[in-house]
């Protein structure tokens, strides 16, 4: 296969892996439950007013307002791309500091960064480049935050209902 086509195919696989990593961790850490700061709550309510679902909106607000598992996955990919596993661990430390700066009491970002570091390092063993995971994570966040807030918030609310049981 042509090398650039292979790179784009890898990016799509990486996007799916990153998407699963950050959604599973964010939903597990109860990001859709409520807004972590006043601003996140307000974003959730505005998304609901635009035809979306409230709990999905809260999670989107929380992603905007503090580095969560999606930011952790992106920075882990950057870290592994530049310096391998130690780079990913440095990224986790920076995400932890970023969470505290943004007044976020949770550990979703740090956990997401650590899991992503090891997942991405594993994928490099089967021919993936960490650079493809950087692009993959940008595509993954685009599907949640950048296309249709109405549909993505409804999807996140559905996942939250499953998590809550």
């Amino acid at each position: 296969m042509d090398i650039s086509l292979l790179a784009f195919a890898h990016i799509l696989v990486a996007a799916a892996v990153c998407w699963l990593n950050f959604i599973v961790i964010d939903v597990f850490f109860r990001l859709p439950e409520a807004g972590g700061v006043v601003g996140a709550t307000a974003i959730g309510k505005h998304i609901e007013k635009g035809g979306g679902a409230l709990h999905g909106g809260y999670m989107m607000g929380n992603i905007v307002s503090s580095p969560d598992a999606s930011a952790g996955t992106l920075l882990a990919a950057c870290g592994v791309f530049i310096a391998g596993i130690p780079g990913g661990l440095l990224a986790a430390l920076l995400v932890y500091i970023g969470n505290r700066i943004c007044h976020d009491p949770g550990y979703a970002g740090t956990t997401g960064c650590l899991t992503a570091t090891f997942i991405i390092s594993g994928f490099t063993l089967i021919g993936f480049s960490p650079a493809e995971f950087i692009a993959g994570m940008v595509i993954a966040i685009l599907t949640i935050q950048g296309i249709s807030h109405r549909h993505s918030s409804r999807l996140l609310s559905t996942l939250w209902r499953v998590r809550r049981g």
Partner: protein
Amino acid sequence: MTPQEAALAVCGIIAVYAAVRVALEPDTLRKLPFFNVLSFAVAGSIALIIPHPLSIIAAAAYFVGSTLESNAIASTYAGGLDRRE
């Protein structure tokens, strides 16, 4: 095209798309998720363009900074915290 160039192309295209969506969205609070996508694409591009250990810190500092800005803008629009006690 190397994987790095392909990744940079994807980040660049998504950054431009997100910037257009930020400009077109009339509701200020709903601009912020699009701005979040833009920050992801720019932070990723920083690491892809400058593969140096310090650029991990640069990308993280840029990303945390932009998140903090979004947090501040959203909280201010929401009326902020009432600290008169």
